[in-house]
């Protein structure tokens, strides 16, 4: 059975997760590259459910990397389906050990991050991307090909897993701004 049905990723085998505390910079876990894990490991499956639960209760949050909840594993959750800037969307999902396969067509956009509450910054990101990863529990391999806002969000989360924040990628010395509104 394919894990992508009608363009949506089918998640299965996840229990209801717990809401975890989101850490903020300069916590060193955010600057540490995450390590690959076994997608079928029960602890990884539990983390996947916890990331989704935490993401759902965080206003405006469309993605969450494991190191944002203090865990140094290559896992993130994502759901941009309700976002007005999204074009292609794959629903709500968790990817394990994700890697970029291809990326093209850079565009600048202003990003904020739950782990950097005081600032926003202009960052160039590819608007088309292919990301390979594995689903928790089933361990199925998927390749997500997407664009626009989902592509930006994927790159933001992948950066987290590499130990980078958007602050590491801002477009210049005058491209960081005080964050004005707290969602």
């Amino acid at each position, binding site marked *: 059975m394919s894990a992508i049905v009608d363009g949506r990723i089918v998640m299965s085998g996840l229990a209801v997760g717990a809401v975890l505390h989101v850490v903020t910079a300069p916590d060193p876990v955010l600057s540490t590259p995450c390590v690959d894990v076994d997608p079928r490991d029960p602890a990884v499956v539990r983390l996947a459910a916890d990331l989704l639960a935490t993401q759902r209760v965080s206003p*405006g*949050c*469309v*993605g969450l990397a494991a190191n944002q909840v203090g865990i140094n594993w290559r896992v993130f959750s994502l759901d941009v389906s309700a*976002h007005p*800037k999204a074009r292609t969307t794959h629903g709500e999902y968790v990817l394990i050990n994700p890697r970029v396969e291809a990326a093209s067509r850079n565009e600048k*956009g*202003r*990003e*904020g*991050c*739950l782990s950097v509450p005081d600032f*926003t910054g202009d960052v160039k990101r590819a608007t088309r991307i292919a990301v390979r990863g594995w689903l928790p529990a089933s361990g199925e391999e998927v390749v997500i090909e997407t664009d626009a*806002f989902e592509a*930006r*969000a994927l790159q*933001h*989360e992948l950066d987290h897993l590499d130990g980078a924040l*958007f602050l590491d990628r801002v477009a210049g010395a*005058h491209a960081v*701004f005080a*964050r*004005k*509104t707290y*969602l």
Partner: protein
Amino acid sequence: MSVLALTVLGHDRPGIIAEVTGVLAELGGNLEDSSMTLLRGHFAWTLLVDTEARPEDLESRLSGLRAEGLVVSVLPLPEHRREGETGNAFLLSVYGADRAGIVSAVTRVLADHGGNVTDLTTRLGADLYLLTAEVELPTDADVTALEAQLKSTALTLGVEAHLVPVEPDVL
């Protein structure tokens, strides 16, 4: 502790920032927000420093910079509590042939709509004058009317003006 506002302006060379911050560190000052750029090649820096040092002491410690021709000022900054901003962020870009009055005309239109400029850069090139501004507009501002007025002002000045929303996305 109180906040002092420093400005340092003048002929650029490597090491100005290192020297000023070295003095601040010796005085136990804590550097807060600052912004520096080159304005037509001139070093131009504005910074806020939280310190127990008196303005005159800081000035005398920076007298070496004055001696080499830099314009240095140190002024106490009155207490200011940042009010909760709830506006929407926009980026305004204006460019065209240089002439008197572009900045005043355009920013007057913004102000009349309650727009607050939160970041501003103007550059004069060989043939082109450029203004880019971050603008905070009240949530109830009539953006369509503002855009129309900016366009007609730009037309009068013979310049291009574009206002685009830059709301950040939390990822």
